[in-house]
């Protein structure tokens, strides 16, 4: 197969025609630094979170499930920066490892969701006709459920585990996001270059992979980044109820949990730090997602 340069919409989508000195995926970050201070802050928070998650082992002398019954409910000190919990586990350590689980579930679910949304969305838009109608009614039915309710139902039946929650959140988000991908793919399908590609004898697979996919890609990136904060928040809500990631894995939602409420009266830092970490992460992903959306695909504003 001869290499064909993918149709390069992004330089136009970026808002101004620029001399193309950099590829668009680098240009985005330069524009982010220049024009989006909040987005840059978000990117820095996300980067910091990634760093903490990756190097958690090296950053703390404790294990995440390491208990020490002689040091229960110790408040912040030089040895335990954020104090310890009801069985003497170091809160700072658990926050660090919590970042790892959040990112693991978040990235896993979003990767799955993006692949699913891309396949479903492009397929439905490209094929059109009765199949599209049928698929979209199924998506409608799925979207009629209040998200958290149906996710709770599924998780309580499957049982809490890291793999289960990643799969469930990924599939649920994928179905929802396929609607947005479909919308964009529908408008791209109408372009004359698609028609001419077909006329020149390109097969359906080639048209979708070479002409439609590259043009849908910025949208997918935007949907994925904005989806990350939702997925992380949903994982935390489910873990909070005991339906997400099971103990002893530390998660921010699980640390805040309903079951541990009684201990928090004695040790308020058990509630404060996970809530702060979660808010900071959601803030970071939100700001990064918003900035990426403005830079890559302003059409999605408000989506």
């Amino acid at each position: 197969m001869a290499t064909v340069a993918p149709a390069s919409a992004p330089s136009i989508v970026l808002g101004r025609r620029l001399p193309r000195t950099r590829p668009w995926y680098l240009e985005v970050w330069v524009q982010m630094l220049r024009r989006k201070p909040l987005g840059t802050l978000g990117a820095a928070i996300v980067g910091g979170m990634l760093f903490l998650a990756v190097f958690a082992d090296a950053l703390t002398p404790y294990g995440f499930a390491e208990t020490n019954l002689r040091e229960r409910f110790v408040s912040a000190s030089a040895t335990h920066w954020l104090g310890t919990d009801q069985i003497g586990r170091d809160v700072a350590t658990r926050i660090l490892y919590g970042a790892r689980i959040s990112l693991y579930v978040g990235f896993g679910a979003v990767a799955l969701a993006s692949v699913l949304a891309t396949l479903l969305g492009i397929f439905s838009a490209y094929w059109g006709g009765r199949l599209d109608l049928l698929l979209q009614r199924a998506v409608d039915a799925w979207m009629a459920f209040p998200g958290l309710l149906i996710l709770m139902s599924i998780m309580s039946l499957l049982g809490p585990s890291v793999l289960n929650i990643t799969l469930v959140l990924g599939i649920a988000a994928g179905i929802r996001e396929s609607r947005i991908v479909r919308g964009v793919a529908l408008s791209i399908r109408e372009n004359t270059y698609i028609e001419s590609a077909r006329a020149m004898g390109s097969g359906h697979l080639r048209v979708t992979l070479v002409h439609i996919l590259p043009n849908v890609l910025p949208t997918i990136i935007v949907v994925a980044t904005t989806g990350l904060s939702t997925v992380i928040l949903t994982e935390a809500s489910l873990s909070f109820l005991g339906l997400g990631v099971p103990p002893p894995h530390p998660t921010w939602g699980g640390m805040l949990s309903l079951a541990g409420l009684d201990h928090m009266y004695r040790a308020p830092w058990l509630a404060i730090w996970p809530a702060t970490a979660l808010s900071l992460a959601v803030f970071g992903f939100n700001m990064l997602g918003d900035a990426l959306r403005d830079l890559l695909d302003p059409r999605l504003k408000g989506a």
Partner: protein
Amino acid sequence: MRPYVLRRLALAVPTLGLVSVIVFSIMRLMPGDVVIRMVEGHAYAPTIDALRRELGLDRPAWVQYADWIGGIVLRGDFGTSFWTRQPIWDEFIQRFPVTLELAALTILASVVIGVLVGIVSAIRQDSAADYLGRVLAILALSVPYFGLAVLVVVLPSIYFKWTPIWTYVPLSTSPLENLKIMLVPALVFGVTRAGPIMRIMRSALLDILRQDYIRTAWSKGLPERAIVLRHALKNALIPVVSLIGLQTPLYIGGSVIIEAIFRLPGVGLFFFEALTRLDYPVVQSVNLIIATMVVGLNLAIDLSYAFLDPRIRYR
């Protein structure tokens, strides 16, 4: 208008049919057998097979589905709980007012906060108040409501010796006492939901304040108050209303968590307790009832646009 309403209603029927199939299949195809737990842990029946027969779970799946849907459509019977053998609908209706009140107060709180801050932010664009409002909106978007709820339950009790009231008093018994109980959960939930409302209110109002008819109103010499409140606000509220509609599922999902934290005996707590006991009939019927409500509410909101903006006409 009437053909439009009828068509929308007709379209809702297949959607709800699919909803019922999805929720039924999920409940039946997943592992996790409630019958084993009921027999082994609680001795509900002598053997697993006997209980399965008693609950009608030995029949083919499609017969069970037909039985469930048939009961709902023909007799308004949503089935009974495996554990308590009580009719689900009775329990749902008895608890629904609590959840409805929580949702209404939450939406009220988030709309009052969001719309007020949004208006101030828009009419004083780029002032200190605007920046403060925008920072608040971003904060509200970032803080998870259950985190805030836990902090509100825990921190004041440590530092101010104040705790939320745990014993629920129905609205009919004592409206004032009831309001005292509902106020804190509704405010906590409402504040975190006000963020998106603030943002959309601000951008919609900014957009409308630049339109020609607003300039005409200024040049007629109308005071700012009249221009903002009488001329601009009504049009700017349309995106707010549709946002609330889009967010209803979030209010409902969130009410499960809020009710669990503040121990309010609403539908959310009913659902959560049923979940932990794998009470399928309750879980699937509550899911279906609530999905039906969401579909109905979205329809109502679409129709309300015609009231808010007479330029919108339906065909």
